[in-house]
């Protein structure tokens, strides 16, 4: 079985090591015997055939805004894929353009592509910190870039609940909807958390009509040790330059 992973705007939206999320899922699928193609989409390209999964990453708001404009004409195609069960994995600003609305710092509200059930307020200084979350998919240890506040619909399910950084600020992260995830966690989060990557990979294979063997891989101990180091250093406070 050949699976195509479509990575939207890899050059412009990649500030959370987002290509690492794609590389991780591709690696884990290949290790389980699947053939994987990674295709990319940038402004002016055609979306192409329906892929096995769609990835979009974090980046500067100006880049996300451009991506939003470029995707607007193909919104109905994306909606069709999303509602037919193609897994989407979206991080940071790339996820925000897939939300309902985005309110900018100056109070101006713009429409998102309305795939995920949340709204965004980009009204705060950024904060970079380590994050430790519980989720129904397992514990998630990652790096968080909190440049905005996400408000998910009352009926929607957050991806996780956890603490951020040395001050242990408690907060929900992201949203999980059917086979898709939107999150503010970087790191990249899937490389650090192979169990979450396998959940995504399993949804991809399931959607393609195949069977997935989620037996851990030998490299998983590397990610486990990496998470342990992050947990040991949770108290590290990163000095972020205020706006």
């Amino acid at each position, binding site marked *: 079985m050949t699976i195509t992973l479509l990575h939207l705007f890899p050059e412009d939206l990649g500030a959370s090591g987002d290509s690492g999320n794609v*590389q991780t899922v591709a*690696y884990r699928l290949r290790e389980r015997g699947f053939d994987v193609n990674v295709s990319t989409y940038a402004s002016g390209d055609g979306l192409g055939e329906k892929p096995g999964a769609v990835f979009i990453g974090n980046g500067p708001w100006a880049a996300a805004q451009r991506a939003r404009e470029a995707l607007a004409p193909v919104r109905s195609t994306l909606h069709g894929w999303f509602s037919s069960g193609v897994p989407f994995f979206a991080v940071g600003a790339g996820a925000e353009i897939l939300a309902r609305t985005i309110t900018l710092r100056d109070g101006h509200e713009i429409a998102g592509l309305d795939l995920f059930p949340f709204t965004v307020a980009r009204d705060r200084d950024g904060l970079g910190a380590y994050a430790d979350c519980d989720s129904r998919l397992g514990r998630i240890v990652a790096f968080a870039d909190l*440049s905005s506040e996400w408000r998910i619909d009352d009926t929607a399910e957050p991806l996780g609940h956890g603490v951020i950084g040395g001050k242990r600020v408690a907060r929900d992260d992201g949203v999980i909807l059917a086979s898709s995830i939107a999150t503010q966690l970087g790191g*990249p989060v899937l490389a650090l958390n192979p169990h979450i990557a396998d959940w995504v990979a399993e949804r991809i294979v399931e959607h393609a009509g195949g069977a997935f063997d989620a037996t851990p891989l030998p490299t998983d101990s*590397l990610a486990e040790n*990496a998470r342990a180091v992050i947990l040991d250093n949770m108290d590290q406070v990163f000095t972020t330059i205020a706006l």
Partner: protein
Amino acid sequence: MRQSLAVIIGKCVYALTKLRGGGSAFPGLVALRIAPRLLQNAFRRVPRGIVFVLGSNGKSTTTHMVSQILRGHGLKVFTNPTGANLPQGVASSLLRQVGARGVVRADIAVLEVDEAFAVELAEILAPRVVLGLNTQVDQLYRFIDTERAGVMMLDAMALASEAIVTNRDDPFLSTVGDRRGAKTPRVVAFGVASEVVAASPNGLLNAQNFADRSRVTALDVVTEVTALTDSGTTLRTRDMNVALSLPARGMHYAVDAAAAVTTVQQVLGEDWSADLTAAAFAAMKPAYGRGEVLPFDATDVTFVMFKNMASLQLNLDALPHETGPVMVAIDEGTPDMSWIYDVRFDALRHVDVISGDKCWQMANCLAMKGVTFDLVEPSVERAVARMRELVTPGVRQTWVVNYEITMIARKLIGFSELASGS
């Protein structure tokens, strides 16, 4: 009076921190508390003024180049050591180099300055020439958005009293001409010839300017990198081809050299000499950790220091074909290393030892990229011991390390002196 008191107390604090084996910005912080105008007073009488060097990558190397070229022209230069680029860091370096009156006795000062403090320091010190090297994706845990770092540098560059030296190929810094306010310093640029960029595996790696992508500002390009060789570069400047040897390998060092030469020309005007510049480069050693080669038992080791995606990629692209035994090490000095997945490791197909607190993240990434490795060892001390076992006389090793591990590893092989800008 207050100035002298601050300097004397600061020097005492410096001596104490040195006794404890540390080198830090703390003495400078103490001195600035006592005399908030310490820096203004210290630099007021520097006859040829102050040069600032800004940029995401290459500040230390370029500051070193500018300083050495100026020294080659007979000037006495004050400069700050690598990394001491916040106000307290500049103050600490001041304490090490001035007398009790706290006045800098040099012909000119060349300071590398952190992006986030560049405007503050420019307002205090009124630099004559400001060089902007590049805007590359760096420390997003700190700046969140590269555009913010770019704008900080543009704002500081606009405060130059006499000349701005900018990078034609940088989508942010090349727009500096539009930033000038009341002051109207001249703007000159350096750049890299397109065929040189095309020959580089991953290009220049300057950050994209998403907010202002279509902006093209006419620039007076006075120096261009026209060729790269194994050990040097050729610059086209003032209607001459100037061949220079470089202190370390890589296109980025040629860019730094073009920036440094352009900056020195702005300072010296007609007194700039191509021959003296070439002689300065011929005698130049690499800046701390930047391609520095140090003896290690019966061989030696090249320190390839990295800070972010661009600096690691450009350094990997410049590695010689034969790297010898390789250590890669990274620690909490690089809090967010997610960008490691964007790096192409084609130049390193095998790593002998991966070390530092963040060794597991590095190993996880390299495993997925198909780079093989023999040992993952968080302790740098034990990792260096392993590299010692791998010493073959005459086979140079390559250690690819972040800043903090550069300091630790240098010390472990017997080079305990602090970073020095000269």
